[in-house]
């Protein structure tokens, strides 16, 4: 993933998510976001085309 972890990008994504980021949080959030993007990029290495995600779905009525 090549999304930059700068304030402008974070601001834009946050607007889509519907949250307002306090100015004081931006430096820490930028660092955390950059690290999170690295984690997401690491997962890109995996071939998961034929893999079902770990989610729970039970159609029985309880």
């Amino acid at each position, binding site marked *: *993933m090549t999304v930059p972890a700068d304030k402008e990008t*974070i601001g834009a*994504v*946050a607007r889509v*998510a*519907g*949250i307002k*980021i*306090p100015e*004081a*949080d931006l430096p*820490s*959030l930028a*660092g*955390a*976001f*950059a*690290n*999170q993007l*690295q*984690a*997401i990029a*690491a*997962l*890109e290495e*995996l071939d*998961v085309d034929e*893999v*079902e*995600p*770990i*989610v*729970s779905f*039970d159609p029985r009525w*309880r």
Partner: protein
Amino acid sequence: MSELHWLTIAEAGERLGRGDVTANELLDAVLERLRETEPEVHAYAGLMDETARDEAERADRELQHGSRRSPLHGIPVAVKDLLYTRGFPTSAGSKVLEGFVPDSDAVVVERLREAGAVLVGKTVTHEFAYGQDVPPTRNSWDRRCYPGGSSAGSGVGVAVGSAFGAIGTDTGGSIRVPASVNGIVGLKTTAGRVSRRGVFPMSATLDSVGPLTRTVEDCALVLGVVAGRDRGDATAIDEPVPDYRAHLSERLEGIRVGVERDYFFYDGVRPDVRAAVEAAIDELGALGAEVVDVPRIEYIEYAAPAGITVLVADTSEWHRRFLRERGDRYVQATRVMLELGELVPATAYVRAQKARAVVRDGLRRAFDGHRLDVLAAPTIPMPTVPLELLSVDLTGSGETALSGFLHHCFLANVTGVPALSVPCGFSDEGLPIGLQLYGRPFGEPDLFRVGHAYQVATEWHLRHPEVGGVAAER
């Protein structure tokens, strides 16, 4: 001074059964110990001493009439302040919940009460279990050091004797880390083994609720009480609860212990931790277990990136309303993580859930391929760290204390398997070291068997920290 607070749950239960001690006396001993130690370690967020006295009185009355509800009958225990307690404040360590008093108990609390346990109080947690703030709790062995988290108070309270056992929660090591750094036993239970209803969540698929105790036998006793189906929790699995104590044994013939030295003994593992854990593995061999070298587990390096992606998104979803309405009441570091979770793309989240399946299958192949019962490793790569060296960035890509904890612990949450931390030595500076035993899904009986045999053969768990002016070795 009374030494009753150092009894194990099993020993205290036997004495209660014989009439050698009363539940009130056990409660007195724990409250006295608590008064001595709290000024130094701050394990408790709130004391339930009035209701505890009522519960102890009831336990004693029932014992006098020959009724003993369970092995926890009359035993003083504590619960993490992340669990609902009826009529008693539950803050999850956060100002966001200031004034919140639940009108019901968490299922685990309900089961403890039904079992006749005496609830002493609520233990300190990092804010909403996120591990981002610095709580007032201090390490029981060195007040300058990290007490573990997020079940910090549960770990420290049990270690200093202000509870016989405690309940914690574990989403990425939050039971095993405080157990390791305080020299006690902690169990991350199999996903679905224990109900999560009435526990503030982080992630429905990563969270688990479990015990912290001073011995493996006590851990088995507590799990036997709190485990089992809950119709109100869709994640609680309807799997029979065995008599965990019945599986304890002093010998390990027939048990296969896997050791993977590439990932779990990487360069970041401190030499004294490596030596203590290797010695513990040798001891398991001497007790009759077959120790098996296992090559690097396929895809294991994806456990942490997959886990953190799911964790931040799941947690933020739950906090969505609070973040928008009371965002300023969070500790800033927690709020930043909640903001971060809002920014994770849905496609990345689904990919992470797929990656978990790949990691799980890699672990299953390792267990099946080598016919393992347990996998042994250090609980964490270092004993503990000075508080000032603790990075608060959970997503840190560099090598930090927290990334080291996740490296060793996250695999169990990501794959849903159980993992037990057992004290296995002390560092050069006298801090506890933990041996971690990973098991198969619902393999808690094997973990208890191995951990108990190890504790019967060793004495690490008999050392107690010097707190409240009193050092002790039983």
